[in-house]
């Protein structure tokens, strides 16, 4: 049975010039212990659809769906209090800018212990102990020292590890990672992706990875959803997506990868996509 199921999700934003549809009738699901990658360019609605699940969209957004269920529970019918029990405990999220996602005025130790106190009811020593364990689990060097550090004293990669530690603190069953490595260097990206994958295996979490980077998809995903301008273009397991992409947009994306360049010029999405769409 799938962990999260979404059918016909639509998100509209009220703007000064009328309503703008950011997500247009998207269906998706993620199974237990599965890694789903959602790929798309900026403006494809890939982040917005997950923010809708988390309930993190601003008031100007209208979310409608035929179905949105988490583990058999209907998320659309939930009260705010019921939803809060889920979000941040069973379903957690990490964001693109690790340094900006942490509060600069508190130590990272305080911030992780806050989550442990609030969500798990741990206090004092127990919270500190668990925080240390989590810092070790995500591979932060000298964890005792680092608990006392402020975010600005850590590097971007370490801040992302702290974010991951906070996200897995409550043993979530679904982790949503929104471009977790976009702001990081390739070598750090590799470390963070390896960490996410090993945690995913160890904890048996479902993982939704939002990204625009086909390289990241190739290295992590079980299954892939390709989104473009708010619509789902293609859905396939990772191997068939790269071997035999069905949608012209996916083909265009893959051929725009610099390492796939055959001649002097890189094919671009517009070369391809408009051509095929007209046909």
């Amino acid at each position, binding site marked *: 049975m799938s962990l999260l199921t979404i059918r016909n999700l639509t998100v509209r934003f009220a703007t000064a010039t009328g309503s703008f549809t950011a997500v247009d009738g998207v269906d998706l699901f993620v199974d237990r*212990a599965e890694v789903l990658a959602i790929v798309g*360019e*900026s403006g494809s609605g890939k982040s917005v659809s997950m923010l809708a699940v988390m309930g993190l969209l601003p008031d100007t957004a209208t979310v409608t769906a035929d179905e949105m269920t988490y583990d058999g529970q209907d998320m659309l019918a939930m009260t705010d209090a019921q939803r809060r029990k889920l979000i941040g405990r069973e379903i957690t999220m990490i964001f693109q800018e690790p340094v900006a996602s942490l509060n600069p005025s508190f130590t990272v130790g305080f911030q992780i212990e806050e989550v442990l106190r609030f969500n798990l009811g741990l206090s004092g020593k127990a919270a500190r102990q668990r925080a240390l364990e989590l810092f070790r689990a995500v591979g932060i060097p000298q964890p005792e020292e680092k608990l006392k550090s402020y975010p600005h004293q850590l590097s*971007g990669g370490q801040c992302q590890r702290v974010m991951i530690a906070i996200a897995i603190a409550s043993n979530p069953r679904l982790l949503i990672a929104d471009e977790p490595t976009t702001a990081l*260097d*390739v*070598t*750090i*990206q*590799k470390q963070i992706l390896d960490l996410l994958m090993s945690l995913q*295996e160890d904890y*048996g979490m479902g993982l939704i990875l939002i990204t*625009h*980077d*086909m*390289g*990241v998809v*190739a*290295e992590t995903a*079980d299954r892939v959803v390709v989104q473009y301008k708010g619509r789902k273009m293609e859905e396939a397991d*990772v*191997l068939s997506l*790269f*071997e035999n992409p069905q949608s012209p947009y996916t083909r*265009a*994306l*893959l051929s*725009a*990868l*610099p*390492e*796939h*360049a055959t001649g*002097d*010029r*890189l*094919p*671009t*999405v*517009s070369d391809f996509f408009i051509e095929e769409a007209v046909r």
Partner: protein
Amino acid sequence: MTPVVEGRAIVRDYHVPGSMFRRAKTVRAVKGIDFSVQKGKTLAIVGESGSGKSTLARIIALIDAPTGGELLIDGQRVDINASRPGPDLRSKVQMVFQNPYGSLNPRQKIGDVLTEPLVINTDIPAAERRDRARAMLQKVGLMPEHYNRYPHMFSGGQRQRIAIARALMLNPSLLVLDEPVSALDLSVQAQVLNLLADLQEEMGLTYVFVSHDLSVVRYIADEVMVISEGEAVEQGSREAIFANPTHPYTRQLFAATPVTDTQAIRARVARRKAARQGAGV
């Protein structure tokens, strides 16, 4: 042939002043780097954040002065500490920055963005400045009617085209590009890389291309320099470095770069399946 730009043992120190709680110290961001680029070629500088690659780019672009070593542009020694670069030198070297959202003044119309370098560095009359700006817009794949618009009306890729157009207004021979495509989406990235390749061929431009993305470097570079902690750990032609990286740091970079070929994916999927069955799930 004299190289368009040459550096000999370039060093850059940053002095961090002390305070009541801390002793003063000197950080050496660039530790004696040699390089040279011939006309019409592209040198790619590859490294992680903090490796000193952007500092080096700023030195080459005559924004920042090196604290040691020599910089030669067209065979002439340049020292921006001794004398501010004049219009001649500024016309030779121009720079394109990483973030096209931050590098364009939001209150300046595109036309003014493009004509400003001409106003500052030349005495070309206003009518001709406008004509040149319109022609340049077309050259970088925009429309002449974009002349009167503001930066917020453009997408990231279009803004980067504008930043490139601005850099080309003075007909430079050398363009320093500091991660020009890393803020862009994949498909837009391909368009901008194509544009850069076309412009290089058409105008005989020389590029110094700073990047951390090896797949982009493989596509655009002739020569590659890998730097780590301020030192050039490996230097050579693109073919040599990609075929046979010798320095451990370069190998580490290659190992970290995601692979998108289907064989690698098949191997990974198989490994995962095996691990799952092993765990009895």
